[in-house]
């Protein structure tokens, strides 16, 4: 077995839920955004505008919760272990990932045959997840530049003037959504690249046996089949 074990400790229940909320919101936001951009389903245009605003706020609240709860919720900073720390350490650089960026890129480009050792998230993965935070803030901000009730707030107006008017903001908002979509495509691809176990974990909170990682020595130290083999 070549995988690390997937334990629930890696993804505590609150974060399984925030992930679900993110997924649903993203789908709703992208869909309603397309309808607002061009009303191909005219009947639901009004609904879409309301939903777009609601889910945009939901994503922001969700993200705020995800970030600000991280010092108070514990999670395993590595796959294949049940040892937990404050979750915020997942956002910070981890020793497990040190010097591994090149190895990951090589691995993805088939220049390295074995799977790099890492923290819960590999280096490129972690960078991508971190990038989603400013990206979400930015797309929400451009959205509020377009929403009339907030569009003439000083900061929004400053940005709108800076980029050249409402039309330019609309295009930026639109392109940022596509960057999000591209992120999601990569995210989904890389998540299933090693089989479906990670999906079962994050969506169904189902554990999966595999190699055991020791956060102290930062090495694989054994294997855990969750007792399935003997059952």
């Amino acid at each position: 077995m070549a995988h690390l074990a997937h334990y629930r400790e890696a993804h505590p229940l609150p974060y399984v839920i925030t992930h679900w909320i993110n997924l649903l919101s993203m789908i709703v936001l992208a869909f309603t955004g397309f309808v607002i951009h061009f009303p191909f389903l005219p009947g639901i245009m009004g609904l879409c505008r309301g939903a777009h605003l609601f889910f945009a706020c939901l994503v922001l609240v969700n993200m705020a919760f995800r970030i600000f709860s991280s010092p108070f919720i514990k999670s395993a900073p590595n796959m294949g272990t049940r040892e937990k720390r404050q979750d915020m350490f997942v956002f910070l650089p981890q020793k497990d990932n040190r010097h591994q960026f090149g190895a990951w890129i090589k691995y993805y480009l088939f220049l390295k045959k074995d799977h790099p050792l890492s923290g819960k998230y590999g280096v490129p993965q972690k960078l991508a997840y971190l990038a989603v935070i400013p990206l979400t803030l930015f797309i929400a901000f451009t959205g509020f530049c377009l929403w009339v009730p907030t569009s003439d707030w000083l900061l929004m107006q400053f940005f709108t003037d800076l980029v050249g008017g409402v039309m330019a903001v609309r295009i930026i908002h639109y392109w940022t959504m596509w960057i999000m979509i591209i992120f999601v495509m990569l995210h989904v691809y890389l998540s299933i690249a090693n089989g479906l176990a990670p999906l079962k974990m994050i969506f169904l909170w189902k554990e999966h046996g595999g190699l055991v990682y020791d956060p102290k020595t930062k090495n694989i130290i054994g294997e855990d089949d969750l007792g399935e083999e003997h059952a």
Partner: protein
Amino acid sequence: MVSKRSSFCSGSATRAAACRSQVDLVTSQPVNTAKLERMLSDRGISRRRFLEFCGAVAVALGLSEAFAPSIQEALAEGIVGKAEGKLIPVIWLELASCTGCTESFAQVDTPDIATVVLELISLTYSETLSAGAGFSLEEAKEETIANGGHIVVIEGALMEGWDGNALRIANEKGTEIVKHAVSTAKAVICAGSCSVDGGWQAAKPNPGGAIGIQNYLQKAFDAGEISSIPPIINVPTCPANPEHLVAVLIEVLLLDRLPVLDRFNKPAQIFGQFIHENCPRRGHFENGEFVYQFGSEEEALGYCLYPMGCKGPQTKNDCPIVRWNRRVSWCVEAGAPCIGCAVSDPTTNKRNWVDLNSPFLKRFHSINIMNYVFQPATLAVAAAGLVVAALAVHGFGWKISGRFAGGAPIEKERAWDIRHPNKAVSTTMRKVAAKKDRVLNAQLIKEESEEKYFDSVSKAALASQAEGHLARQQANPEKASDTNDNTDQTQGGE
């Protein structure tokens, strides 16, 4: 609406007082009104039409229609006063333009009240409107400029191309004419989008170097070519709406004050709200009733023009309220989507309203990069498509290499750790590295590498490294052991 008036005057307490005194002043002179009405009726304009006009002007100024009599008085005073030579003179400069603004202003076949009022106002120079021509007209203009304190109305864009020779009038460069005319002016009114941001002339590729007036004057000022910039009032739209111009002219000439301006120097009252906010088709927008094609049933039903590229939701103007052609109708009411002719940004020459809004029937403007013109969606879909294609190819390789099922085996040690055993992340690795004897150390690593799974690259690196160690150790045995001691100390500190 009365409260709006007070907000209009709320710039400062003194300004509010000035507003009041203006009103007091004008309402105390009914004699002039009677005179003006006689002048107008000589030109075939009834008292009722004149009052209607004054009401519209009041609305455009942000006042209630109840202020129509005050406007009427102001006009009367100004126009009758003109006969006594007291009015601020106006020079109307026509630069690179289609004359549409003049045309919109003064339609010869049906002379309307605005035309008459403007004729009566001291328009000392206008290529199109003036009865005189040639030398005498130029002379009148020169005299006005020499006297100073006049208003310059500018229609059309300035052309900087070919050292300013792209636009020459009366054997003089347009740039020089403008600099000269504004040098002693009390204020500049940019009438129509071309004079505000360069307009159609400045749309890509703009070979003649068209530029908006505010932008040009700023440049000229920065270059030290003019010593000051008079207050600028930008009245965009294509063409300029006569109601707007008359309202601004009346405010500037007769009430002798600048309108309240926004950050683009546009009258805030006129260009303060999105068209979409006041559009009569807004109900259809809310109900999701749209026109998708001209000539369709939806169009006949007067549905919302949003899918036809209507720029009403991002254009600030009062078209739905003040309307056009003597308040008969306006773009959307007439069935055409708004093309956003009022979005002109006078602060930069990098973008103008035509580039910002074309193609007019699309929801987005087109992007022009090195003469490749495309829609934002095309670029986005192409980028996403590229990623999908790359992932498909990658996935194919992933599958062939058998990584999908079960994935690749996980490395036993980080490749970097193997190359830098003393600084390794993994403690097991460092223990191996910390062995006193350097030779032994290198050999250990080598042995280790045989046991564990390494790829060929790492193996080669490892082998050469081990050999390097051996060679160095033979050349300088003492130094090598020193390094090892240090490593051990670091290790102890962990």
